[in-house]
């Protein structure tokens, strides 16, 4: 998990510029900021890898791949396949 504290610079419709105490400058989508922030606000951002969700997505993708194989890659006559 990564957690950082940032100061919010001027905010426009799509992007805000955030700065860290050690002078990193980061363009950040406005839509991901809390509504109450304005220039000079301080935010904490934390980013966590969602292993669970990642696994789910991979499994879903695998199952789609098996469907495609079953539907279009099998030698016999086409089987009816359950749509997702």
């Amino acid at each position, binding site marked *: 998990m990564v957690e950082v504290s940032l100061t919010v610079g001027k905010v426009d419709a799509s992007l805000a510029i955030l700065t860290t105490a050690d002078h990193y400058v980061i363009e950040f989508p406005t*839509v991901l900021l809390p509504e109450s922030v304005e220039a000079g606000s301080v935010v904490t951002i934390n980013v966590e890898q969602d292993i669970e969700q990642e696994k789910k997505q991979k499994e879903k993708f695998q199952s789609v791949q098996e469907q495609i194989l079953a539907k279009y890659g099998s030698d016999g006559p086409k089987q009816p396949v359950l749509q997702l």
Partner: protein
Amino acid sequence: MPLSQDSIPEVVEETPGQALNERIIKLSDPDFVGSLGPQDLVTIVKHDSQKKTVGSFFYVAGLDTSDPTGIAIWLKDVIECLQEKPQLWFGKNVKFSVESISFTTWNIFSQCDMTVKVHLPGTIETSFVNKQGKKLEFGEDETNMAWGEAFLSGKMRDLMCMVENRDDGEVINVVETRIYNPLLTGQLDSVHDMFIGLFPLFFGRGAEVGCPCIYGNMPSTLTNNYLVETLCEIVRLTKSIDLCLPMLEELKVAFGPLLNIVIARIYLTNDRELDGVKLIHDSLHEISDPTYQCELLLLQGKYLLEHNDPQLALEASQRGVDLTPNAFMPWFYLVRSYIALGDNKNALLSLNSLPMNLASLAQKYQYRRIMNTDGNNATVELHLPLPLDVVLDEVTNLNSLLVMDEHKVVDPVLYNLKSANLKNTFQWIYELLCEIVKNLGWEKLLQLRAELFLMEEEYDHLDTTSETESEKVVTRDIKGKRLCERWFDNLFMLLYDDLRVHSQWQSGELKPKTTLEWELVGLCCFRLRQFESAKIAFQNGLQIRFSSQSSRKLLQILLKEQKSNPSEDIDLEIIATCVKLCCWSHRWYAEFSMLLLDAMSIVVEDLGTTRVDNEVNSRFPASVSKLFHDNILEFFKTYTNEYYDE
């Protein structure tokens, strides 16, 4: 068709040698050379009977450049043509004798120009010049390798020029170019054999030669580049899968599972769909790099869309977007899937998220002039003879003054449709937007757009006039909506103009009179995916006179109809249209068109070559029929590995 005086265009030089000098100077300009290099150049020095020296040049494409001797033989053919009788030269008959003639071709791999020069009576010399204009000396092995490279370079240019300009009807803007069919002109071996034979030596360098922009902004990789693209096109056209597959399998030993991307593509484009689907499935486990995975997913997505399975296509393209969201193509397929599923909201949202700014930078390969023949340089003289060996009156003798008159009187409403000028990715995206408006109607589309997007102007306006406090309010208000990208917003305006023209024509308010006006109406309908209306418009226009663009577009519509609802009548109409286009190409010194080959491959597969030959014979003059046989049917008979029935 054999060479004749009236099948060779020429541009007169101000001083003999000018064109080749200018070309060498321009080699240092990366814009001029581009990825694939300039097309081949022929320059001529000849004397008239008063010993006045004339320098001239023309461009040529499609020749086999694997062997300087073969090139020299062709150059001698050109000399013979020019000398056999007086040339009709700017209104006079002039008896020329040729002093020298040269042929120059760009070698992409060694980045040098290779020139064969014939001095009369008989010396032949070859020379190589690099980008800085310096002469290069090659040893014997190097020289042999360099001619092999020249062969591959030439074939890539010949085929990619057609492939990249397919959307625009293969229009070659450099009229002083003689274009041969690159698949017919092999000197020793057939072209496809030679290409497949040389391919493994250069596969590892494929990423260097750049990549086609027909896939948006996909990066050059080992498996996505002009070399691989040319291979796939050659195999597809010449049906050389049996020769190609073992070669690729052997490469796989050295380069690993990446080769499966090419192999799967060869399967899918050569009637081996089952194998292709399986291979993609297995390779997705073996290949982990996101860029290459995305290439696989694109093959899969395209296949699924073609098989009308948008639900699965959506899944495949969504994965492509997830892995490489900077790439245009997976987004494009994602939108197509949403449209096919009737999910217009997600179609619009993903259209707006397409990485358009990156994708629109891709430059397609096009022929370039060494010296401009238009614009300021008023001194350039073009000798553009009319080939008289094949005459189809309505095509060959089309009066260009008449066409220019039509341009002068055209209804401005039709003339100023900006959507007609959209290129590449913008053109494709516009097509999708038209698809959506066709399903949804204009009013509902606008309503949906207003629900989803805040217009950028709207926001800008607020931004400049507001003080901080009101700005804050705006920022909050729009959080539910997204900014509509400016390019996307512009497309809506173009769409509005097209729709207006369409409805004015439907209501009878707009009445096309000339072929040009019918063509513009037809193109507008075509963009709007109103193919039946478009067909009517093109056909109305073509009843008045021939038009190559109307014919090409009509051909596309006929091919769609033939696919969805096959009939022999349509086959016959396709034949007639192709014959006329073939005559038109011939009149402009071009004997090769992939559009025509692709169209005719479908008809030939239906009817067989003999039947098609007979149909053409019975409907067209003998010279036309012979042309069509030599340029089109002969290809299917002799150069396609006996794939097609007689």
